[in-house]
């Protein structure tokens, strides 16, 4: 647990909390967006919102890959999974995402062969072990997970695994950040920049945030001390009148990113002209598809998918939540029609979704009493 315990150290955290309180007292109220779903989860998991001064508001951004899958894509995945002879492999989070009429979990209950895997390579292994099945990996995620999908595609090609294909829903982080910065009424004062995405793409792609929008961005890790330090660094930039791209997560993120992983992405994927994001609508060049060389392993080309766009439910305000325009509990259906058991919007599905995180962890505001620690 080294490399974890240090970043949950109470003394380090307390020093940062004091530093943040001191800096915040000298500044106007600030709104910071954490880009990653991992940040959102950690903020609630460790009760960090309860430790920040009231003048600092954390806005939960679009970085939960499960939360941004539009319903039409879920329906497409279900349509593929329901076909005779198909085994669909996916990450556990994806099972409960609501589509237009049902979810993959319901498809599984109705007999579809759906298996939860922890790596796309596990799906490839299943394809090799069960040559009579058509094995489809449902790929979801930002640049963090896309390289492992790329490696899997390359191995499928090199090992001639014909009964394997990829239903690709990989997305990229910069276009939605741009979309949010361009949206009317945007009132952010800075970003906690993506952590794991940045291990792949580096910090260069975020320069536009400082250059074009005049906002500071700090690439930040996922432990409590990381997040508190990220917030402290944003406040310091603002108080010193700087707006730069800084890297708090240096133990993992190199400014130039991971060249080998970037090479894999280039070899396997191409940008889609446009892709629909749940709640954000269509965003140009924001998602990846397998390129022509790997067309043979592209499930969208191998199987017929309906490809129908399903409008988000009217009551659902996932888009407003993702943009930071409203907070989770300000949504009309939050906690009533939309709960983790019966999610309407995807923000309520994944534990990294802003609404589910708030519902599960955040509803309680610490009272004045500081609990006594047991001996």
């Amino acid at each position, binding site marked *: 647990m080294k490399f974890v315990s240090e970043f949950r150290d*109470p003394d380090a955290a307390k020093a940062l909390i004091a530093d943040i309180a001191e800096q915040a007292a000298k500044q106007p109220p600030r709104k910071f967006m954490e880009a990653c779903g991992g940040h959102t989860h950690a903020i609630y998991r460790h*009760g960090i919102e309860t430790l920040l001064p009231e003048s600092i508001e954390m806005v939960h951004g679009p970085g939960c890959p499960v939360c941004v899958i539009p319903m039409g894509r879920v329906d497409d995945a279900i349509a593929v999974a329901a076909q005779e002879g198909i085994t669909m492999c996916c990450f556990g989070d994806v099972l409960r995402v609501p589509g237009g009429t049902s979810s993959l979990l319901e498809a599984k209950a109705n007999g579809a062969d759906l298996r939860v895997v*922890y790596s796309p390579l*596990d799906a490839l292994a299943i394809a090799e072990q069960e040559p009579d099945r058509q094995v489809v990996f449902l790929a979801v995620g930002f640049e963090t997970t896309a390289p492992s999908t790329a490696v899997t595609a390359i191995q499928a090609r090199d090992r001639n695994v014909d009964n394997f294909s990829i239903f690709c829903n990989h997305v990229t982080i910069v276009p939605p950040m741009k979309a949010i910065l361009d949206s009317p009424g945007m009132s952010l004062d800075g970003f906690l920049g993506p952590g794991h995405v940045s291990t792949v793409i580096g910090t260069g792609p975020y320069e536009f945030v400082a250059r074009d929008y005049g906002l500071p961005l700090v690439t930040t890790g996922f432990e409590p001390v990381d997040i508190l330090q990220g917030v402290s660094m944003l406040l310091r930039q603002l108080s010193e009148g700087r707006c730069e791209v800084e890297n708090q997560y240096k133990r993992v993120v190199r400014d130039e990113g991971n060249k080998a992983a970037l090479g894999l992405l280039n070899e396997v994927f191409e940008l889609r002209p446009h892709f629909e994001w749940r709640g954000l609508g269509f965003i140009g060049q924001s998602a990846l598809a397998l390129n022509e060389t790997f067309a043979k392993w592209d499930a969208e080309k191998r199987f017929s998918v309906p490809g129908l766009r399903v409008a988000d439910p009217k009551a659902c305000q996932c888009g407003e939540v993702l943009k930071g325009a409203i907070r989770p509990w300000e949504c009309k259906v939050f906690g009533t029609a939309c709960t983790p058991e019966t999610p309407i919007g995807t923000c309520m599905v994944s534990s990294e979704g802003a609404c589910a995180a708030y519902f599960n962890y955040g509803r309680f505001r*610490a009272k004045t009493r500081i609990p006594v*620690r*047991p001996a």
Partner: protein
Amino acid sequence: MNSQEERDQVHERITQWKLRPQKLKDEVITMAHGAGGKASQALTDAVFLDAYGGEELDRLDDGAVLDVPAGKRIVFTTDAFVVTPRTFAGGSIGDLAVNGTVNDLAVMGATPQWLTVSAVLEEGLPIAELRDIVADIAAAAATAGVSIVAGDTKVVEHGAADGCYLTTSGIGVLDSNLSLGAEHVRPGDAVIVSGSLGDHGMAVMLARGDLKLKADIASDTAPVHEAVRALLDAVPSTRWIRDPTRGGLASTCNELAVATGMGVSLFEESFPIKPPVAGACELLGIDPLYVANEGKFAAVVPAEHVDAALAALRSVPVSAEAVAVGEINDEHPGMVVAHTPFGGSRIVDMLVGAPLPRIC
């Protein structure tokens, strides 16, 4: 010898032949083993009675007749077991089937006495594997000091079940004066757990092999009745006891919060979680508070008796690592809140969905 005598001798041989113990020569379970005929009898004799037969079970009556001590009440419970895989580091479905029911009786404050075991077997199950499971049942029952007094076996077609499902029912004898329950819990009471959290759930996860993780984690499956007895002897005013199996301590505390209408505060830094379990949970993004235990219990005791409770528990091997993890309050009714070491807090809600299916 006349022909009548010869015929009588032949008949006698046939009678003796029919009365002989049936031999079990099969290597796998077939539908015949569930048909109630000779194959069923052979399976019962050679596998079940051989492992845990006794005065009551050997009679093969339709039910067991049990003597309840005068003036005592009984506690009766039942539990089904469908864990996959059937063996894992630290135990098997056989251990779970005994300890699960024994512990349900124990946390009611009862002394576990009698069990029944029903097995649903899938056609094709290797009998060698069944023998291993049954041996584990026998050993666990002996350890827990319970007799198996009735049982049943059914066989279903290949594909209609996954190998072997077990159901155990149990009866324990309860001291008539004892009264445990959420209605006795008061604000200020302490919440204690009898030892490390999350061992069983993670051991099963790792045994599935699809994580490609290796770690020194074993299931904690064990009977806890002696530890419960030690606690009740030391602190007769113990309010409430529950075993945090599926859904882990988080679910148990939520049940407590709902049943009492009070709040439960937990202190994260006091959670007894072994480093390999904490590491595996961290890697998989699982909160160990939600991971199942099979040899632990949580108890609520009056705050002034915490030290006595912990001292009593620590004197019993199965609860040697007992610690206090929280307290009851009236500040956030019906809600469980965990406090982080640096003063943050978060809600610990009921589990949604099934991240760890079929762990018991």
